[in-house]
């Protein structure tokens, strides 16, 4: 093969000193050349070069053919592979062996497993418990949903239009100022545990109902003092929903006709109840 020494590219520059070549005693060459960098500064480059002649014996016909001129579609293209027609492919494996089928099968299986894991860890997240399954398949579906809802109730007071997660909550599902969800559709509401408390003093509010008047009868599902829309002043009656009908009955029996904040309470089942 014919080998040609590539001359330094710096040769072309005229204001730059020509490269100095010194031969070292160990047979290597030191080439000191200069060039201008992008800022216009002169840069000194010192290269140590060892020249090795690699002799390759090829068939004389091959050597002859190496020097053929290109023709056809390749006419006038520069020497060397053209990236339009010649590219390196991706690495492929050839693992020779009688058990190649099993090995390949195993590899495919592990790959499938890995991709399945990726899918489950990256894409699926339960909205209820945060686990790697669909929300509808959550094992805590029945137990956790209630908690999740109540947990998001506190910060809501500041921004009534938004829930804690920033999602829009329709008006009829929003909590009111006291932390109760007001169901606007009377037809769907279960009134069996509810009592109407009338002849309340106007100073009585929901907290007082929950924490003073009805503490004996367990926590209240709901306590609403009906107020004047404009002034917010109590209209003197309230609806109270107990956890059970039994509790409501107890409260009705005990408190009906008793005095509370200078007035005699009147408790009754709401009107719709037969």
């Amino acid at each position: 093969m014919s080998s040609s020494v590539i001359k330094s590219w710096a040769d072309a520059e005229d204001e730059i000193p020509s490269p100095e070549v010194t031969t070292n005693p160990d047979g290597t060459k030191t080439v000191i050349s200069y060039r201008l960098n992008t800022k216009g500064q002169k840069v000194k480059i010192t290269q140590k070069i060892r020249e090795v002649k690699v002799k390759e014996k090829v068939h004389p016909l091959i050597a002859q053919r190496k020097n053929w001129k290109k023709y056809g579609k390749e006419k006038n293209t520069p020497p060397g592979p053209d990236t339009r027609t010649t590219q390196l492919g991706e690495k492929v494996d050839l693992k020779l062996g009688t058990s190649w089928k099993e090995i390949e099968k195993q590899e495919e299986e592990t790959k499938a497993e890995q991709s399945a894991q990726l899918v489950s860890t990256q894409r699926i997240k339960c909205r209820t418990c945060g686990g790697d399954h669909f929300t509808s398949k959550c094992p805590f579906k029945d137990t956790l949903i209630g908690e999740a809802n109540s947990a998001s109730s506190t910060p809501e007071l500041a921004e009534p239009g938004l829930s804690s997660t920033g999602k829009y909550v329709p008006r009829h599902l929003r909590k009111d100022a006291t932390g109760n969800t007001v169901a606007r559709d009377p037809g769907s509401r279960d009134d069996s545990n509810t009592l109407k408390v009338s002849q309340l003093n106007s100073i009585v509010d929901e907290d007082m109902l929950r924490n003073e008047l009805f503490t004996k009868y367990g926590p209240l599902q709901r306590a609403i003092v009906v107020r004047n829309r404009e002034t917010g002043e109590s209209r003197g009656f309230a609806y109270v929903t107990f956890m059970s009908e039994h509790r409501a009955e107890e409260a009705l029996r005990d408190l009906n006709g008793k005095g509370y904040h200078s007035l005699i309470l009147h408790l009754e089942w709401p009107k719709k109840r037969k």
Partner: protein
Amino acid sequence: MRPIKLMGHERSLTQVKFNREGDLIFSVAKDSTASIWYSSNGERLGTLEGHLGTIWSIDMDSETKLCATGSADLTIRLWKVETGECVFTWEMPSPVRRVAFAPDDSRLLAVTDQVMGRTGTISVFNINYGGDYTQQEQEPEVVIETRTDSKKVTVAGWTANSEYIIAGHEDGSVSKYNSKTGEFIQSVQAHGIHNEEKVVSISDIQFAPEDGSYLITSSKDKCAALIDVESLEILKVYKADAPMNTAAITPVKDFVILGGGQEARNVTTTAESQGKFEARFYHKIFVDEIGRVKGHFGPLNSIAVHPDGTGYASGGEDGFIRLHYYDKSYFEFEYDTERTERAIASGTT
């Protein structure tokens, strides 16, 4: 190993071939240009322009001076490889499916297709190396017509001494003819007997790289067969799970490479993994499948092995040629029995 992708063709490849020294790869495709590549770096030396239809086959003489292409445009063209000039054109009555130079370079065979009311033939032309190669005889020296008891010839090749022509037929049989007289000598049913496949057409024939004393045929019946040239005895049968389009015998190592895959017309209707578009390596003697090389996304139409045994090139229906050079592990692979046998042999001597 990292293959070199040769992407000079616009349509599916029909044949790829190394020259005798293995420094050039010749490839033909359905896009009517032939390409010649340097095998060392994948650089394209040039293209052969002039055909007007699919080129089915290409072959070159032993010194890579001339190459011939057989095309569906009813011509065989003879080209000077150095310059890419077409020096002669033979007009044929029907499409040319296969061309092959005799090992002594003196003659060229051409298999013509049995279409358009023509009988399929093997025509043998004399090649005149005098002058600038343009003085060739238009008429073939010998014409072997399809025998009445057989189906048309699909592929053909020369025995090492250039005396006989071995032909593969559409009915899966392999027959031997005298190349001088065209006389039929013998025939063997090589395909269609190993399984129940209906289509048994022979798709490729390649001779042993060392001495040409045996050959391999691939067939649409999902098998490849190793056949002795002298007696036409079936030596080995390699079974695959898809129609095979090509088969090659590797030098240095005792392997054969099979290529094929699902029929091209079914490719778009199934997943890539179903297509079986891999080069399959079988052990030549133990007949086991020992490995596969992925890469093509269409069936493999032609495989050629480097004469030095250092690599192979495959041309696919996808229009790409992939040129592979083997890793070290390829040369180190041995069966346990081979290894022990060698150890015993070296121990006793």
